[in-house]
């Protein structure tokens, strides 16, 4: 188990029963380097590819209208919260999906704690 896998496991444990999926994804390729989904209906590889496109478009759109660099994108659906956050130099992003029962404020605080650790844990 890599350092990043261990960190992801710790993160999952902190989220608890509301956890659905998390992946650390290369922005350019849209491929996950670590993570996975515990919900068979939520395809982590598909999510990684799709949110890679979303993060690239968000970065481009916000830059064009002078809003500066994108930090994260939070999507709320009737089933889930999905947060995608750029980490490190922005070449990777970290995507987390949790149920609507999760406490959004707590999730963001936990993500703040782990973001730099995840970046350091990416194999290079």
């Amino acid at each position: 188990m890599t350092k990043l896998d261990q960190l992801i496991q710790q993160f999952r444990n902190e989220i608890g029963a509301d956890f659905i999926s998390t992946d650390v994804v290369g922005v350019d390729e849209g491929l996950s380097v670590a993570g996975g989904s515990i919900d068979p209906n939520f395809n982590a590889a598909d999510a990684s590819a799709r949110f890679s496109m979303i993060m690239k478009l968000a970065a481009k759109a916000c830059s064009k209208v002078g809003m500066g660099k994108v930090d994260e994108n939070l999507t709320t659906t009737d089933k889930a919260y999905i947060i995608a956050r750029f980490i490190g130099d922005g070449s990777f992003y970290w995507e987390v999906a949790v149920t609507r029962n999760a406490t959004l404020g707590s999730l963001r605080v936990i993500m703040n704690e782990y973001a730099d650790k995840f970046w350091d844990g990416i194999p290079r």
Partner: protein
Amino acid sequence: MGMKGNLHDMAVADLIQHNCQDLKTAQLTIQHSGQQAVLYFMEGNLAHAVLGNQTGEEVVYQILTWEDGNFDLETGIKPPKTSITRNWSGLLFEGAKRIDENELVNKSFQSEDNIYPEANKMSKLDDILKEMSNEVTGYIACAVVGTDGINIASHSSNKSADPEAISAQMTQLLKLVDSSVEKLGAGSIEDNLTTTENAYLLMRFLPGKQYYLSIAANRKTGNLGNMRLLSKMYTERLSKAMPH
């Protein structure tokens, strides 16, 4: 396919709205008191207007005051040039405002609501956005935007924020997020919040998903909870005030 009629049966504002909402490409010729005006629609936009030697927006404002005359609509005819860039709802709103200011409203009508109900509803949307701007912490700008990326109402606290440019860019993002979560089976989207180094940008669909409310707030002074709560409250109000 063409259509002919009388302005008593269908007012100029209704003709414009009808052609734009149906995304038509067409030529509309209107005869009134010996004058002839020609309007050209291109894929739902009013692109060009001619009246004698005049062209552009001013022609539209003038013919909006015409209450009698005949019209002839021919579809499939493209505009020979573009003299109008403002969106159709903005034109109708401005036209209604000018009529009101110049007291050209025919007294036989009891209220402006009878003439341009759609334009009046636009004015209500503007009022609601203005009210919301006073409640959003760190407020920068807000808009009600169609899924075509065009604002139907907007408000901005400073000149550096361009609601039209923001809407055009962010609509693409919202549509991509919407289609992505649907394909992932992750449910039906309620809102999307993008956080940048400078700003929070929240987008929330109005019921029916044809329009959405976008709010931009300062990253340093804005408050996420405040934005999300207000967006829920005001989405309901805006939905009720929307033209149908």
